[in-house]
């Protein structure tokens, strides 16, 4: 991944021309709504991925990057709309410039480029989730479990795992179907061989015995072994083609037709009827649900209806209903995903049985048709073929449904047709065939033997072929099922491990920003086709985040889950993220913790944060999360965002003083000190006189906070002495002396006594007098904050409640022990 150093945006979205310098560090963008902040987010996303989620996400059908990416005045000239990002690639220690125009969004121009750099840019394209808006955060928190599963899997790049699973299950299902079909063909071949032999069970000895009896009639040698290559009629004279019709093996034909008649007369067995009824019931249930879906989006309507049922009446028509009864009635109309899965599984079993019966009946009818054509004179076989084809058609309808459940009407029609009832015209032909066969003259004993051996040979070979095929498909099916089951087991185990690790990380992050929920726990649980996410609510149990937690807490959870997922997905590669207004609803009490979380847990990630709250931006600065920022103060269609630099407050005061404007400089200093005093009072747990309206002015906060600072340093001296740490004691004493000197220079302690030095009087100071005040406070604040450039944060006490044990900053450079032995 990358870290952004500079961004140049031209004629893109609402921006005409804009340059931002990020220098690879965290960066804040602040401005009221509609000033172009999100245009910058879009530009970053576009430059790195070629896409703009805002224009291509769900529900954005009419919008497109090409059509709506350029500034409105350049909508017909997309070549002019372009974004360039100068970035550092830490893993390669290289700096590159990536440029993309809306005209060719799929093609990024990278300079200088090599294979490794290209790979990094490709990787960025496959991780568009580095940019997250507040709207998108909801995806991870309040979304339905089934949708969350998809979103989280997409973020974790796990969708391919599911794609492979679907592919393997498809393979396993088709192998199963083809094996079952082959097995049915084998069973029919076996049945026909048994009919020819006149046996109810196949036995190798019996087959040889029956064959040898006929061979003896023909004076042929006895066969001793039943092998796949056996020729039952070996040595027998060839049958002449001319008298083929006369060579119907009458005995076998009669047996065959008896079997056909019996099969058709049996019609639908009780077992088959149960399967058919089961299938029909299941299909009708599905059809009812599908119908509901197509009729006025009834599925959603019913779900919504369930939410609206609050009294004993229908929420739509006011018809009186018992509330519980109405809910049960509506719920009964919905089929849950799990129910559908079970239903389809049962349906498959029932359908397979019916398909087998249809195939069997069609085969019986075709057997009769075969004899019809061999008789002399031949019996018309049209009605027989028509019936067999009709049966084939019904089978095709059931199979079509298995491949595509939308083909439900044909499947229902197939099951509702009494296919086992032979049409009258077909029955007439069957009777004619039977009559014709029975009327055949009896063959001589030798002819009978010849015909028997010929039929035996034919049916034995067929059985061998069908058995071989069924065996091969059995073996393939067994392998396919195993391959799928292994994949399912392995991927589930890996996913469970991932979810467990992510949930653990999420819990840690969330606890870091919400220390009032000490026993908080988050659970991610993968269930079939859904991902449940439950969180603890003050030890009263775990519930979906939307159940009891406030919107602000949910936003915090969304951010934590996102960070946990990204950390898990990208690991060391998580070097860059854009959080677009994500932190807005995090309440004031938790903002500092959010800043600390981002800063301490993700020190190697560059965050670009947008907010419309200036105070938030200041918090980020005070906590050392960001050093640089950009203020957006307005927008015009012709000029784009109106921006000014988010200068350091001292620079701003200095600039105002160069214009000799002491009152404005005084107001700036006062506002800044009020803000920073509140931060320090909170950090140091200063004892401030409580005000119900929370309207504290500088006089309420600063003196007591500075006293607290000295007091804590004194406590540090005492603790160091207590532990016998002379060096630490000397250092803290030095710091304390420095504090006393600097505080004295500010005169803050005199505010209550000497009105002439009170901050209210600052505006009446001369420029030189006020410059002294500014310098005094600047030096004092520099003295308090951490001198480590990478940290720069103000120290705070830990723990947040109870006796303070440590005075420290984020990086630990300030680390004063306050605990006595």
């Amino acid at each position: 991944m990358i870290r952004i150093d500079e961004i140049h945006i031209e004629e893109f979205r609402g921006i005409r021309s804009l340059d931002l310098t990020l220098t690879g560090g965290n960066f804040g963008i602040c401005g009221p709504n509609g000033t172009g902040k999100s245009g910058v987010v879009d530009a970053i996303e576009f430059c790195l991925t070629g896409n703009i989620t805002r224009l291509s996400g769900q529900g954005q059908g009419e919008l497109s990057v090409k059509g709506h990416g350029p500034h409105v005045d350049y909508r017909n000239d997309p070549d002019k709309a372009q974004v360039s990002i100068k970035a550092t690639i830490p893993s390669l220690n290289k700096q590159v410039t990536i440029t993309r125009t809306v005209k060719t969004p799929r093609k990024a121009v990278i300079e200088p480029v090599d294979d490794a750099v290209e790979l990094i840019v490709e990787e960025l394209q496959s991780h568009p989730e580095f940019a997250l808006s507040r709207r998108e955060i909801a995806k991870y928190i309040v979304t339905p479990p089934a949708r969350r599963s998809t979103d989280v899997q997409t973020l974790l790049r796990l969708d391919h795992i599911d794609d492979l699973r679907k592919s393997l299950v498809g393979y396993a299902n088709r192998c199963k179907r083809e094996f079952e079909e082959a097995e049915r063909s084998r069973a029919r071949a076996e049945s026909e061989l048994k009919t020819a032999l006149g046996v109810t069970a196949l036995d190798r000895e019996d087959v040889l015995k029956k064959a040898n009896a006929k061979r003896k009639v023909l004076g042929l040698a006895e066969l001793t072994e039943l092998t796949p290559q056996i020729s039952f009629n070996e040595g027998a004279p060839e049958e002449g083609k001319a008298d083929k019709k006369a060579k119907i093996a009458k005995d076998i034909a009669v047996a065959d037709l008896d079997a056909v008649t019996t099969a058709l007369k049996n019609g639908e067995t009780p077992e088959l009827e149960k399967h058919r009824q089961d299938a029909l019931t299941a299909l009708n249930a599905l059809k009812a649900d599908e119908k509901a879906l197509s009729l006025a989006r009834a599925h959603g309507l019913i779900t919504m209806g369930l939410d609206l049922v609050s009294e004993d009446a229908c929420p739509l028509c006011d018809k009186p209903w018992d509330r519980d009864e109405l809910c049960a009635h509506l719920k009964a109309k919905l089929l849950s995903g799990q129910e559908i899965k079970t239903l389809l599984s049962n349906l498959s079993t029932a359908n397979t049985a019916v398909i087998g019966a249809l195939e069997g009946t069609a085969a019986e009818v075709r057997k009769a048709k075969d004899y019809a054509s061999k008789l002399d004179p031949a019996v018309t076989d049209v009605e027989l073929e028509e019936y067999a084809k009709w049966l084939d058609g019904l089978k095709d309808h059931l199979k079509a449904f298995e491949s595509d459940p939308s083909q439900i009407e044909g499947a229902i029609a197939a099951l509702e047709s009494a296919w086992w009832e032979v049409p009258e015209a077909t029955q007439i032909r069957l009777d004619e065939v039977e009559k014709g066969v029975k009327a055949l003259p009896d063959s001589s004993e030798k002819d009978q033997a010849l015909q028997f051996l010929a039929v035996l040979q034919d049916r034995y070979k067929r059985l061998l072929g069908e058995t071989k095929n069924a065996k091969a498909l059995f073996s393939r099916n067994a392998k396919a099922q195993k391959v799928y089951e292994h994949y399912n087991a392995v991927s589930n185990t890996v996913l469970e491990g991932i979810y467990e690790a992510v949930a653990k990380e999420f819990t840690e992050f969330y606890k870091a920003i919400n220390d009032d929920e000490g026993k908080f726990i988050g659970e991610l649980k993968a269930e079939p086709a859904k991902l449940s996410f439950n969180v603890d609510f003050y030890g009263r149990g775990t519930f979906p985040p939307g159940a009891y937690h406030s919107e602000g807490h949910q936003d915090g959870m969304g951010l934590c889950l996102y960070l946990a997922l990204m950390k898990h997905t990208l690991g060391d590669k998580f070097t860059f993220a854009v959080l677009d207004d994500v932190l807005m609803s995090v309440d004031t009490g938790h903002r500092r913790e959010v800043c600390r979380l981002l800063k301490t847990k993700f020190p190697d990630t560059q965050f670009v944060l947008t907010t419309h709250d200036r105070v938030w931006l200041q918090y980020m600065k005070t906590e050392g999360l960001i050093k640089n920022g950009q203020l957006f103060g307005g927008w015009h269609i012709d000029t784009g965002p109106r921006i000014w630099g988010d200068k350091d407050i001292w620079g701003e005061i200095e600039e105002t003083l160069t214009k000799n404007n002491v009152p404005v400089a005084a107001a700036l200093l006062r506002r800044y000190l009020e803000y920073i005093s509140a931060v320090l009072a909170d950090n140091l747990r200063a004892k401030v006189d409580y005000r119900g309206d929370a309207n504290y002015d500088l006089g309420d906060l600063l003196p007591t906070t500075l006293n607290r600072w000295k007091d804590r340093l004194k406590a540090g001296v005492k603790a160091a002495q207590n532990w016998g740490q002379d060096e630490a004691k000397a250092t803290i004493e030095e710091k304390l002396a420095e504090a006393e000197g600097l505080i004295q220079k500010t005169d803050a302690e005199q505010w209550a006594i000497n009105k002439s030095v009170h901050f209210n009087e600052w505006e009446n100071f001369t420029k030189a007098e006020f410059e002294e005040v500014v310098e005094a406070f600047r030096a004092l604040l520099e003295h308090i904050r951490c001198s480590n450039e990478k940290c720069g944060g103000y120290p705070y006490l830990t723990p947040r409640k109870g006796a303070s044990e440590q005075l420290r900053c984020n990086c630990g450079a300030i680390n004063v022990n306050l605990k006595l032995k």
Partner: protein
Amino acid sequence: MSEEHENPLSPTVSKVLDEYLATLEGDDEIDNEAAKRLDTLLRQGKVPKFEEIDKALSKTKPADKP
């Protein structure tokens, strides 16, 4: 569509496939060559078709010359 593009595999997908290959190779009823062919197919970053999986799992050595 993902079926039409060959995408680089994410570390998680690779982890699943690594463990999957080990499981397949540990199964006596699935020969190692078939397991490797399937593994190669699944690592192509696209969704394999029925025929491709079938070929990977059922490919056998050429018959000996009669």
